[in-house]
């Protein structure tokens, strides 16, 4: 058997491109692939020096070959990167190895691979990293990223995306300072080989911008759940300095775990490799202002391609800006929270301010009312005084006797109203507490007789005969009834009916005052007992407030029922005085 022929013929199956040079450096043999792929024919190559492959204008290319020879003095140089030109002038990147086969005859074997694609990809990655880096600087513009979760997604997507750093998988761990642990947060990457095929086949059709990628990622987040389960419940005590993750964290230096890693038998390294099911992975610390905030672990579990220092450089640089962004996001987040808290506090302050202002308003109103009441009291005393003076000296037969007596009576009631407004009562005054409703109703109707007549209102009165007394001051009941009757008369305007009923029901005296007037619109029905609410042109809006206050102060209730254009009914109810209880005074 011709061994020589055997080897040469089969070398093509072992090496991609190869050339055999003689002691003069001339090519005496080459692989078929050189003819096929590089476009040269036998005449172009045989008996030519190896330097013929070097681009003509590549400076130093002549020396390069001798450099290689010199470097291979011990027998070989391997994996040297350089560039050669094809027949058609296209330049490709190659990785070549040179072996001195026979030191006596100086035969040399040169083998090389076309690494143009790899170099292209690396270039692409590099430019992508740079563009990502630029884009990451946009982290400052946080309106793009609404939450920390968005950042985490962004980081992990950038690490693994085909257009990004192109690791197969990324695992993010963050320091939880409160609990003193490093905790697994999130992972991205295919959970299995099949998934990988699916995801990576997506590369070309993958969206181009980072935000699009993140959107894409969010859609896939379920597919990633398999990889995320790896991190479930992973937490490492920060004081566990033997742990490889903590080591990277505290030394603030990346750790490349491969078969060459000296501490390969460390339990934590074994644990990590087993957890990730890989031989090789890199642990990259995340640093922020000198503080270690977490680690990213990356691997190429699917493609099994080696992690190079170039890759590490890329991710370290990336991690730097990602951490900045992440920490800024955290700060923004807590700032946001503080802002929210401040907003809440402000809202509360504003609310209580409004309440205060409202109280202040009411206080001012109260003062005003008190002032007015005091101012009214003087003239009222004068009117009452003169009226009483005339009244006392008048004979009952005098035709003005009734008029004067009414002045005295009404002024007396008014004085009591003023006292009530000012929350004062004449201490010396004997106040009868057992009060007869029928008397009060009659008194009111007598006083308003003229107005009733003027408005042509028919009055229908039905008062139960043996009505029990109720526990209320006379002038209070008078005030209540006169207010309600006056309102009724005003509502009727002309030619209506006023119905006044009083009866005893279940230990209560119930007084009903009903009119056939305009009625109350249902939307204002709830407001009629509010201070300063009025529908009258010259009203103060205090009438029904006083009524309600007086009714309730005396243990009674008041209800209103109204139908628009039909009329209004007020029903007041007071508990009956229990028998045998002494009247006040």
């Amino acid at each position, binding site marked *: 058997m011709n061994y020589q022929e055997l080897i040469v013929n089969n070398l093509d199956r072992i090496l991609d491109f190869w050339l055999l040079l003689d002691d003069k450096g001339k090519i005496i043999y080459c692989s078929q692939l050189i003819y096929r792929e590089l476009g040269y024919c036998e005449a172009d190559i045989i008996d030519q020096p190896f330097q013929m492959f070097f681009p003509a204008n590549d400076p130093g290319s002549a020396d390069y070959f001798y450099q290689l020879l010199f470097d291979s003095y011990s027998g070989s140089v391997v994996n040297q990167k350089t560039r050669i030109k094809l027949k058609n002038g296209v330049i490709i990147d190659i990785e070549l190895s040179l072996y001195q086969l026979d030191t006596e005859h100086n035969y040399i074997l040169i083998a090389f691979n076309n690494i143009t694609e790899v170099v292209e990809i690396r270039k692409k990655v590099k430019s992508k990293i740079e563009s990502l880096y630029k884009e990451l600087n946009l982290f400052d513009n946080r309106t793009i990223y609404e939450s920390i979760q968005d950042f985490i997604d962004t980081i992990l997507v950038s690490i693994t995306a085909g257009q990004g750093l192109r690791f197969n998988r990324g695992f993010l761990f963050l320091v939880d300072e409160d609990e003193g642990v490093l905790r697994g947060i999130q992972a991205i990457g295919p959970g299995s080989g099949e998934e990988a095929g699916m995801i990576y086949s997506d590369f070309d059709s993958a969206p181009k911008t980072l935000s699009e990628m993140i959107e894409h990622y969010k859609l896939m987040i379920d597919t990633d759940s398999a990889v995320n389960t790896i991190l479930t419940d992973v937490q490492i005590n920060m004081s566990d300095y033997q742990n490889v993750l903590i080591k990277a964290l505290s030394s603030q230096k990346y750790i490349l775990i491969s078969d060459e890693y000296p501490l390969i038998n460390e339990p934590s390294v074994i644990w990590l490799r087993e957890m990730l099911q890989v031989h090789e992975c890199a642990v990259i610390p995340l640093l922020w202002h000198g503080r270690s905030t977490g680690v990213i672990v990356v691997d190429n579990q699917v493609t099994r391609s080696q992690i190079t220092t170039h890759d590490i450089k890329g991710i370290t640089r990336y991690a730097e800006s990602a951490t900045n962004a992440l920490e800024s996001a955290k700060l923004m987040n807590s700032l946001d929270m503080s802002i929210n808290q401040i907003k809440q506090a402000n809202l509360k302050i504003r609310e209580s301010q409004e309440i205060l202002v409202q109280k202040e308003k009411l206080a001012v109103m109260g003062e005003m009312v008190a002032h007015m009441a*005091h*101012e009214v*009291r*003087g*003239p*009222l*005393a*004068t*009117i*009452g*005084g*003169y*009226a*009483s*003076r005339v009244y006392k000296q008048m004979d009952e037969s005098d035709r003005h006797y009734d008029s004067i007596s009414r002045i*005295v009576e009404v*002024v*007396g009631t008014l*004085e009591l109203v003023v006292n009530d407004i*000012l929350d*004062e009562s*004449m201490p*010396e005054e004997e106040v009868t507490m057992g009060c007869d409703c029928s008397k009060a109703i009659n008194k009111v109707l007598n006083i308003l007789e003229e107005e009733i007549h003027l408005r042509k209102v028919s009055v229908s009165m039905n008062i139960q005969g043996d009505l029990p007394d109720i526990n209320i001051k006379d002038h209070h009941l008078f005030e209540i009834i006169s207010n309600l009757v006056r309102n009724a008369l005003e509502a009727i305007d002309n030619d209506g009916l006023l119905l006044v009923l009083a009866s005893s029901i279940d230990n209560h005296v119930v007084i009903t005052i009903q009119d056939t007037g305009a009625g109350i619109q249902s939307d204002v029905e709830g407001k009629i007992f509010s201070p300063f609410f009025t529908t009258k042109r010259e009203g103060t809006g205090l009438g029904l407030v006083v009524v309600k206050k007086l009714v309730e102060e005396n243990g009674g209730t008041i209800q209103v029922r109204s139908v628009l254009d039909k009329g209004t009914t007020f029903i007041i109810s007071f508990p009956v005085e229990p028998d045998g209880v002494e009247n006040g005074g």
Partner: protein
Amino acid sequence: MADKKRLLIIDDDKNMRELLELEFKDQDYDVITAENAFEGLQVLKNESVDLVVLDIKMPGMDGIEALEKIVSIYRELPVVIHSAYSHFKENYLTWSAVAYVIKSGKFDELFETVKTHI
């Protein structure tokens, strides 16, 4: 003449002042009126008075200031405050008066008070 008790009524409200004069005269008192505190103090200098009925809200010198002056000069002279303002009752400056009656159309309380302190 000698057995009639003499009152000084100080009130800036003409209607009230004249009404009180009529009413107290009816009650058999000798009545002198003054329409402000200065005039009232002037009266006290020249006339002997058994009791003063004093309003509080008055232009110029108010009743509280007048009261201070009166009680500092005429220590034994009873002063009854007669005011529409009830809240001055809480003012300790008015406490040197013998009584505080709130104005009303019914004079029963005022008559009673004056009768008690004269």
